[in-house]
């Protein structure tokens, strides 16, 4: 599954269950079929951030949450 970043943010103030993940990047991805999906950006190793227009692909699901990474 791949797509394009429609918008993104870097979250510093997290809800209670994600406090240990902060800061983490969240994005809305426009998938190839035109549908949109809210996903996390996998960046643990690279520290990489994505921007609007970047091409991304699904890296993995963790606890049912889709994580995308830059192509």
């Amino acid at each position, binding site marked *: 599954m791949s797509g394009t970043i*429609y*918008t*993104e*943010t*870097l*979250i*510093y*103030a*997290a*809800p*209670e*269950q*994600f*406090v240990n*993940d902060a*800061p*983490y990047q*969240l*994005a*809305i991805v426009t998938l190839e079929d035109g549908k*949109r*999906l*809210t*996903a*996390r950006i996998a960046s643990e190793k690279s520290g990489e951030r994505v921007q*609007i227009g970047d091409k991304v692909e699904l890296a993995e699901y963790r606890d*049912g*949450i*889709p994580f995308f990474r830059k192509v």
Partner: protein
Amino acid sequence: MRPVAVIGIGKTAFGAFPDRDLRSLAVEAGRKCMEDAHVKPSQVEAFYLGNFAGPSFVGQNHLAPYIAGAMDITGVPCTRFEAACASSGSAFFHAVSAVGAGLYDVVLVGGVEKMTSQPTPKVTEILAGAGDMCGEGRAGATFPALFAMIARRHMYQYGTTREMLAAVAVKNHANGAKNPQAHMRKVITMEQALGGKPIADPLTVYDCSLISDGAAAVLIVPLERASEFTDKPARVLGIAQTSDQVALDQKEDITTFKAVKEAAQKAYKMAGVTANDIQFAEVHDCFTIAEIVASEDLGFVKKGEGGPYALQGCTALNGPRPLNTSGGLKSKGHPVGATGVAQICDVVAQIRGEAGERQLQRHSLGLAQNLGGSGATAVVTILGAAA
């Protein structure tokens, strides 16, 4: 529908009040409102309450009769409305509809939230429940994050800048500093607003509304009976509530709130006015970007021009169209369930000429815009001096 008038307003101060419980805040606002309109509890025919998350914030349910009973209002319909941050805007819409339809004559509408008894991460989590908890919420979205993503896209499509966002915060703090009931009566500079602690990039703490305790109430009657209670009624000229998808990722264009545009068009049509006629407005600035988007969706400026409009001072107290003379959610505070009715109180106070240091010269036609979640509920109300 028969015409409806607001005959009484009452608010608590907004702030962090560790010694106050939810009910005492709501009761204070309700009693002030009844006093303002010279209405006795026994005259109230129905109580409509807006509250977002009392059960989560303070563990209390069955809130409408719980609060009404403490004001000696019993034996009548008492109902709670929940529509995220538009909870009391929605309560007001339904109350006006009921009075307009002839179901009741004297109706009290309240709004309350008690938020500060929980730590901030818990508040963030409870507020996130106004979004889609199977999608964006599960992925770790917060409300600041949803509006940060709106801001990012608005910047990308229209060239909106951080300075334009900060200009909204600076202006609303300047207004709130003049409001004795505001939560944060503090003037801030552009440098402070730009250098705030990051919350969700590009939004800093100065782009976010406050976590507040507070309550507000208004009394409405059919216009034909308003003179029995007050010599300064404000007429509800137009009102509409609309809805859209809850999840941000289900909206085609996130730089606009379709529900707000539709509610505004309906309310303008009902009132027989256009956006240009509106002299001032209380808009839902839960985040600075939301005020910029509101100025566009309400038709005050063209799409994409809300940022420069704010930066140029057009929305300041002395500008051509003042927005949030109360200080807005940013400075006045945002006890979410109270906000919709508090906005009505603030517009009515301007219409009556009772806004003190913030009183406008042109104040006969005002608008209130209340937003739920990231735009799934919108309520737009147009109020005018009853000639």
